[in-house]
C-alpha cells in the first residue's frame, strides 16, 4: 500500500491520536494528492485532527480551484468542517480574496454571512465596496455582519455608507453601525448621533460612539448620562465623557465639563459612580477616578485609597485627594492609625506629595515603624514635603538595616539641605569620616546638595574608587570652575570608572582649562575614557579633536564610539564633516544611522532626496521611522507622495501608523 493510502486508512481509525498523526504524515505532500483526504479530516470529530488538517493544507501550495472548494464547505451541516473552512480561508488572507469576492453575493445567506466575516478578519481595504453593498442585503444578519466588519476593517470610506444605513429601521443594525463608527473613529455630525441617545436600546452604543468621535457638543448629553439609573449606560456615559474631555482645550473642558461635574458634589449620583469602581474594566476605572477627582466628593476617600494599590490608577487618585483638600487630609490621617502596612505607606506617600497639614506627625510615626516599606516611603515623603523639622529624625535612618531606607534618607536630606543647611552639613560631616564607603558616598551626595566643593575635593582623594567616582559626579553637577584642577587629577586615577566620570565632568564644566586635559584623555588606554573625553570635547566644540576623530571613523570602530565621534564632529563642525556624517547613513549599526539622521536633520534638508529611497527601505523599522519623521517635518505635505509610495510595502505596524497619521494630517 502506498504511503498516502496507508495514511488515509489510518484516518479512519477510532483512535484520535492515530488520526492526528495520519494528518501530520500527509503534510508536505502535493495538495492535489491529499486534498480529498484532508478535506475529510477538516470535518473530523476531534478538534486536534481538524486543526492539524488546516495546518497541513496551508503548508502546501493551494491552487485557486481548491480555494473555491473551501467556500463550498461553508454550506456544510458539519459545524467543525465549517469552522475549519473559515479558519483556512482567513489564514489564506488576500490570496482568498478573488474567490470570496464571487461569493459575497452567494445564494445562501449563511454563506454570505460567513464570507463577510472572513473578509472582515482578513482586513483588506479592498473588501470595503463589497461590504458596503452588503449593507443592503435582504437578510438582516448579513447586513449587520457587513456593518460590523466595516468597523473591523476601519476604513474611513465606509463612514458615509454606514450613516446612510443608520436610517434603516433595524435596531440591531443601527446598534452595530454605532459600534463600527466608534471603531473607525472619524468624526461625524453630532446631529446624526444625538437623537439616538433618546432610544433606550441604542443609548449605550450612542454614548460609546460619542466617546469615540464626539466633541464639545456631546458634553451636556454625557453629563446628563451620568445620572442614568441603568448601570452599564451610566458607565458608558462616564467613559465617553472623559474621552471627550481629553480632546477639548483645557479652558473649554473646565467650563463645559468640570464646573458641571463639581455641582454633583454631595449628590446621590456619586454613590452610583462609587458602586461602579468594582469594575474589572481598567479604562472605565480610570475614567471613574478622573471623574471623582473632578467632583471632589469626600465619600470617595476610602475607595480612592483602595485604588491606590494599583500603580496605574495612582496618578488619578492623587488629584482627587488634592481636590478634596482638608477633608481628605483629616480622613487619611485618621485612617493612618487604623489601617494595614500597605495603606499606611500610601497615606505617607500622599502626605509627601500633597503636603497636607498634620503630615509631619504621620511621617514621624512612619519613619519609626517596624515596616521597612513604611520607613522608606515616610522618609522620602518628608523630603518631598520639605519638612525640615524632621531632619534629626531622618538622620538615624542613614544607619537603617534596609538599604532602600538608607537611600531614602539620603534623598530626603539632599532635598532638605536648602531648608536647614547647617543640620545637613553636620550630618554630612559625620558621614565623611565613617568607616563604610557607602556612608562616605552618601556624604558626597549631601555635600553636593549643599554646594560644598571643598568637602568634595577631599572625598575625591578617598581610598575607595566608588567614593571617588561619586565625588567626581557630584562636582560635575555643581559645575564650578574651581573644581577643574581636582577633576583633572581624577583623569589620572587608576580606576577607569573614575576617569570616565572625570572626563564627563570636565565636559559639563567647560572653559579653556579643560581642553588640554581632555585631549590627553583621548589617548587613555581605556576606550570608554576616550569615548567620554571625545563626547566632552564635542560638547565644547573643540577643533583639536577633529582630526583624530576623522581618523578614528576611518578605522571602522563599533557603534557607540562611532555615534559619539559623529556627535563630537557635528559639535565641532567644519569642512568635510557633513560628508562623513552622510557616509554613516550606510553604517551596519542602525543606532549609528539614526544618530547620523539626527545630526543631518539639524543641517537643513539638502541631503533628504539623495538618501530618501534607501532610508525609506532601510531594513530596520526605527531607522525608517526616524527618517519619515524628519522627511515630514522638513517637507510637510510634499512628503506625502513618497510616504504613500511605500505604504503598501511597509509591514511594520508602528511605521504604518506613523505614515497614516502624517497622510491624515495633510489630507
Amino acid at each position: 500500500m502506498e504511503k498516502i493510502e496507508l495514511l488515509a486508512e489510518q484516518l479512519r481509525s477510532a483512535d484520535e491520536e492515530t488520526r492526528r498523526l495520519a494528518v501530520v504524515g500527509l503534510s508536505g505532500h502535493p495538495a492535489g494528492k491529499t486534498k480529498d483526504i484532508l478535506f475529510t479530516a477538516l470535518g473530523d470529530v476531534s478538534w486536534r485532527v481538524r486543526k492539524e488538517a488546516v495546518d497541513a493544507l496551508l503548508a502546501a501550495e493551494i491552487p485557486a480551484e481548491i480555494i473555491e472548494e473551501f467556500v463550498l464547505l461553508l454550506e456544510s451541516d458539519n459545524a467543525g468542517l465549517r469552522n475549519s473552512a473559515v479558519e483556512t480561508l482567513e489564514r489564506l488572507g488576500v490570496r482568498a480574496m478573488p474567490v470570496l469576492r464571487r461569493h459575497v453575493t452567494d445564494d445562501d445567506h449563511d454563506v454570505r454571512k460567513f464570507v463577510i466575516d472572513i473578509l472582515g478578519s482578513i482586513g483588506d481595504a479592498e473588501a470595503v465596496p463589497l461590504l458596503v453593498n452588503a449593507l443592503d442585503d435582504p437578510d438582516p444578519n448579513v447586513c449587520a455582519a457587513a456593518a460590523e466588519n466595516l468597523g473591523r476593517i476601519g476604513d474611513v470610506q465606509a463612514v458615509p455608507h454606514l450613516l446612510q444605513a443608520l436610517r434603516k429601521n433595524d435596531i440591531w443594525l443601527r446598534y452595530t453601525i454605532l459600534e463600527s463608527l466608534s471603531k473607525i473613529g472619524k468624526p461625524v455630525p453630532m446631529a446624526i448621533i444625538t437623537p439616538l441617545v433618546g432610544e433606550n436600546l441604542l443609548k449605550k452604543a450612542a454614548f460609546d460612539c460619542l466617546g469615540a468621535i464626539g466633541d464639545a457638543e456631546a458634553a451636556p448629553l454625557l453629563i446628563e448620562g451620568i445620572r442614568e439609573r441603568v448601570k452599564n449606560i451610566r458607565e458608558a456615559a462616564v467613559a465617553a465623557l472623559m474621552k471627550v474631555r481629553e480632546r477639548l482645550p483645557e479652558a473649554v473642558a473646565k467650563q463645559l465639563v468640570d464646573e458641571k461635574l463639581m455641582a454633583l458634589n454631595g449628590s446621590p449620583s456619586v454613590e452610583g459612580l462609587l458602586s461602579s469602581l468594582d469594575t474589572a474594566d481598567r479604562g472605565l476605572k480610570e475614567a471613574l477616578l478622573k471623574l471623582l477627582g473632578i467632583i471632589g466628593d469626600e465619600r470617595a476617600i476610602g475607595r480612592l485609597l483602595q485604588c491606590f494599590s494599583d500603580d496605574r490608577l495612582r496618578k488619578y487618585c492623587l488629584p482627587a485627594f488634592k481636590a478634596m483638600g482638608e477633608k481628605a487630609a483629616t480622613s487619611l490621617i485618621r485612617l493612618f492609625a487604623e489601617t494595614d502596612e500597605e495603606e499606611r505607606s500610601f497615606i505617607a506617600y500622599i502626605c509627601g506629595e500633597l503636603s497636607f497639614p498634620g503630615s509631619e506627625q504621620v511621617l514621624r510615626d512612619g519613619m519609626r515603624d517596624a515596616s521597612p516599606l513604611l520607613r522608606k516611603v515616610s522618609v522620602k515623603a518628608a523630603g518631598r514635603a520639605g519638612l525640615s523639622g524632621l531632619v534629626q529624625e531622618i538622620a538615624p535612618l542613614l544607619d537603617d538595616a534596609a538599604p532602600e531606607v538608607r537611600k531614602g534618607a539620603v534623598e530626603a536630606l539632599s532635598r532638605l539641605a536648602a531648608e536647614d543647611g547647617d543640620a545637613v552639613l553636620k550630618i554630612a560631616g559625620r558621614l565623611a569620616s565613617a568607616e563604610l564607603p557607602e556612608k562616605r558616598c552618601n556624604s558626597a551626595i549631601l555635600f553636593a546638595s549643599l554646594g560644598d566643593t571643598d568637602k568634595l575635593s577631599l572625598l575625591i582623594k578617598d581610598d575607595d574608587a566608588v567614593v571617588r567616582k561619586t565625588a567626581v559626579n557630584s562636582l560635575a553637577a555643581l559645575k564650578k570652575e574651581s573644581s577643574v584642577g581636582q577633576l583633572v587629577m581624577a583623569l589620572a586615577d587608576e580606576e577607569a570608572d573614575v576617569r570616565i566620570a572625570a572626563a564627563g565632568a570636565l565636559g559639563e564644566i567647560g572653559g579653556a582649562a579643560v581642553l588640554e586635559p581632555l585631549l590627553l584623555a583621548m589617548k587613555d588606554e581605556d576606550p570608554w575614557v576616550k569615548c567620554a573625553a571625545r563626547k566632552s570635547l564635542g560638547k565644547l566644540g573643540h577643533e583639536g579633536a577633529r582630526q583624530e576623530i576623522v581618523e578614528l571613523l576611518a578605522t571602522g570602530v563599533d557603534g557607540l564610539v562611532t555615534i559619539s565621534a559623529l556627535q563630537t564632529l557635528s559639535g565641532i563642525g567644519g569642512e568635510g564633516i557633513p560628508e562623513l556624517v552622510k557616509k554613516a547613513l550606510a553604517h551596519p549599526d542602525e543606532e549609528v544611522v539614526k544618530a547620523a539622521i539626527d545630526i543631518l536633520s539639524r543641517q537643513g534638508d539638502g541631503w533628504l532626496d539623495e538618501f530618501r529611497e534607501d532610508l525609506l527601505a532601510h531594513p530596520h523599522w526605527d531607522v525608517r521611522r526616524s527618517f519619515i519623521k524628519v522627511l515630514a517635518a522638513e517637507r510637510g505635505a510634499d512628503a506625502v507622495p513618497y510616504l504613500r509610495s511605500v505604504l503598501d510595502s511597509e509591514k511594520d505596524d508602528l511605521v504604518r501608523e506613523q505614515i497614516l497619521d502624517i497622510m491624515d494630517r495633510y489630507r
Partner: protein
Amino acid sequence: MMFNAEPEIPMSEEEFRLIRDLVYSHSGLFFDNDSKYLLEKRLGRRLSLHRLSAFRDYYHFLRYNREKEQELSDIMDILTTNETYFFREAFQLKAFTDEIIPELIAEKEKKGDRSLRIWSAGCSSGEEPYTIAMLLLEMGCCKGWRVEIIGTDISHRVLQQARKALYGKSAFRATEETYVKRFFQEQDGSFRIADAVKELVTISHLNLFDQNRLALLGRMDIIFCRNVIIYFDQAAKKRVVEIFNRMLRQGGYLLLGHSESLMNISTAFTLKHLKNDMVYQKPRISGDTP
C-alpha cells in the same frame, strides 16, 4: 516590596519596541504590546540605578555599555520573576493529588516501575516544586518510590532563593496551617522548609531553549509549566511545547497556568477533563505501551 514610590519615567512606543526586540534576540523571551507597562515598570528601576533619565539611554546602555552582558543577565531576573506562593491554583493541585498521581502510580505499579519524575519548568523561587513535594509527602503514596522533582528557571537570582528555601509570610497566603507546622521551621520571622521536602527537590538553572542542557533532564511523567509560556511569542511557545512533548512519557501530563492554553500552539496533547480541572495529556499511541 510591592509599593514603589519612585517617580515614573515613561517609555515611548519606540523605546518599548527597541528594548523588547533586544531582550528577544538575547533570550527568546517575547513581550507583546500589552506588556509595555510591565517593561516600563520593571526596568524603570534600572534607570534610576544607572542614573539614566530616559529609556533610549537605557537601550544604548544595553547595546553598548561594557557591563551590558551583566545587565542583560540581571534584567532576565527582573523580567521573568513573577510573584508566586505555595499551593497556588488549588483546583489544579487537587487534580494532581486526587486524579493524576493515583492514575500514574497505578499504571506504573502494574509495570513494576516505581519511579516518578516531575519537572517544574520556570520554578521561580521554588514554591511550586516544594509544594509538589509537600503534597506527595502528605499523600504518603510514594513510600518506596524513587521520586524526583526538578525545579528549573532561567533566573539565577530566584534559583538562589529556591535553594535557600527561606520564605516570608506572603508565600503562605494559600497554605493551610497544617502544612506550615509539618514542613517548615520558623527562623527570624521567616520560614525554612524541612529537609524531608528539600530532599525530593533538585533546583537547577535552565534556559528552555538550551537543547544540550534539556537533554540532561531525561523523560518526565508530569511537567508543571505555569505562567511561563506567557513570556514567549507564538513561535517560541510552539518550540517550548514541542520540547515538553518530547520530554514527556506517553500518557504523561502537562499542567499549564489557569489562563494558558495550547490553542493555536499545538495539537500534540489531548485536553483531559478531570473532576477538578482540565489538563493536557500526551496521548498514548494505540498499540504502544507507555
